[in-house]
């Protein structure tokens, strides 16, 4: 299996502040499932921002999809972004669009045919329990409903890599398990998944997952497994 993400000695500082990420180096094989953990302010969201190309590192080198994204021109990034699905910590739903339209967004940006959009979105909405809220705008959705819309939007276009920032903070444990199961299924279909979370009890649900532990901007990797990961087992296509 090929390497989809590779960090080499990456550092990140915002403006002139101190570095919020220091000496981050790891490799993520295609099809891997990684949990990103660490206390509040450790740098999980910052690391994800690097991954979804919202931020360039202030030092070091990041390869994604086999390309050095630190040196790519700005115009080459949108095409890469369309291969990445993101669940943001604050959801970032578009206020004036219905749940359906929010979820359909990545497909429409990619120019998918409308009939296909409808079929896919409706199926996924049912899966995350939002079928009845199809035409509701984010303002009238409960926190957990919003979070599920955000997750559905991130996975609808079957991205190569899925990034989720605290995706279960606003749902009950049962729904959290269900969502994690969705991630797991996607992962088994080949999507590389990175989930930042505080909900440590969820981690046991994905036994094959690896864990990247951040502590005040530094990687805790006593075994060195992240820097030189073992190959990922080929996923059985069972869904």
């Amino acid at each position, binding site marked *: 299996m090929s390497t989809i993400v590779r960090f080499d000695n990456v550092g990140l500082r915002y403006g002139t502040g101190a570095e919020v990420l220091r000496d981050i180096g790891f490799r993520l094989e295609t099809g891997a499932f990684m949990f990103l953990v660490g206390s509040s302010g450790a740098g999980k969201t910052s690391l994800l921002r690097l991954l*979804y*190309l*919202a*931020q*360039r590192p202030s030092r070091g080198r990041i390869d994604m999809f086999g390309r050095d994204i630190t040196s790519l021109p*700005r115009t080459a*990034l*949108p*095409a*890469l*972004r*369309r*291969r*990445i699905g*993101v669940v*943001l910590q604050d959801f*970032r*739903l*578009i*206020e*004036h*669009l219905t749940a359906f*339209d929010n979820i359909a*967004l*990545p497909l*429409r*940006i*990619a*120019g998918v045919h409308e009939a296909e959009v409808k079929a896919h979105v409706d199926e996924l909405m049912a899966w995350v329990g939002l079928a009845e809220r199809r035409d509701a705008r984010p303002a009238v959705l409960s926190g957990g409903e919003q979070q599920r819309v955000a997750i559905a*939007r991130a996975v609808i276009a079957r991205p190569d890599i899925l990034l989720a920032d605290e995706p279960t903070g606003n749902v009950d444990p049962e729904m959290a398990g269900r969502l994690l199961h969705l991630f797991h299924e996607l992962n088994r279909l080949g999507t590389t998944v990175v989930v930042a979370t505080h909900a440590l009890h969820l981690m046991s649900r994905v036994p094959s997952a690896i864990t990247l532990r951040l502590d005040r901007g530094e990687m805790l990797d006593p075994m060195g497994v992240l820097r030189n990961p073992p190959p990922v087992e080929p996923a059985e296509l069972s869904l």
Partner: protein
Amino acid sequence: MIAWLQPRAQRYRFLPEGRWAGGALPWIIGMMTFLATLALAGGMALSNGAAALTGGLSRSFTVQIVEPNPDLKREQTAAIAAMLRARADLADVVVLGDSELRALVEPWLGSGNIGEELPLPAMIDARWKTGTGDMAAIDEAVRALAPTARIDTHAQWFRPLAGVVEVLKWLAVSIGVLVVATTAAIVALSVRAALSTHGPTIETLHIMGAEDRTVAALFEYRYAIQGLVGGVIGAIAGLAVIIVIGNLLGQFGGGLAGEVSLSPLGWTALAAVPLLVALLTILTVRITVGRRLRQQL
């Protein structure tokens, strides 16, 4: 370039539909276009007027031969007229007949009061072909032929009025330019407000891999329509007012209105105003939105 004509930009409504800025922007743009049209038309009309005054009318002058002896007067008149006609830089040298002179004086004296015995002066009108030539030389030549002759340059009468017209012309032009600049500022203000309102949407679209020009097109499309609608409304209102005023001036003012009217080029320029306003709107939007988008990686 014409990305904002793509149907997808509208079909998928990444930005909310409906009247932006409470629907006021087209009216504001319309009002500004109306003012710009009026100022432009006023400037052009005044410019024509000024040209007529400093050009046509003020280029002519009159020689008055005041000589009690009718024979001598006739002689001098002929000599001066011949001299003036001989010059290559003068045109339209006309000796006013006695009857024309009588018509000029009659209002003041009552008709039928002017007998043969009244010693009317002789008058010769002439006009410089271009600009105003060497008036002093004419003066000298005329005096050599008739010492009592007097020269009236029309310019001396029209110069003050021409000055006023000139000042008003520049005032009108400055107002036009200011109005256009203000329109751009208003559009920019509205766009910046819209960007701030829709900032989260833009950021989200960006994260999901939308191209800059797709996002920019969403704004350009909406503002172009508003600019065009406003521009057309304003230009139509402006042209209507201009035509009405022009008719009234024609009705009342007689001769002067002709001097103040617009050339076909002028009308074309006025008709181009709404397109210009729409273009200005699109340009303002493109610059403002582009700057905002490049703030993100």
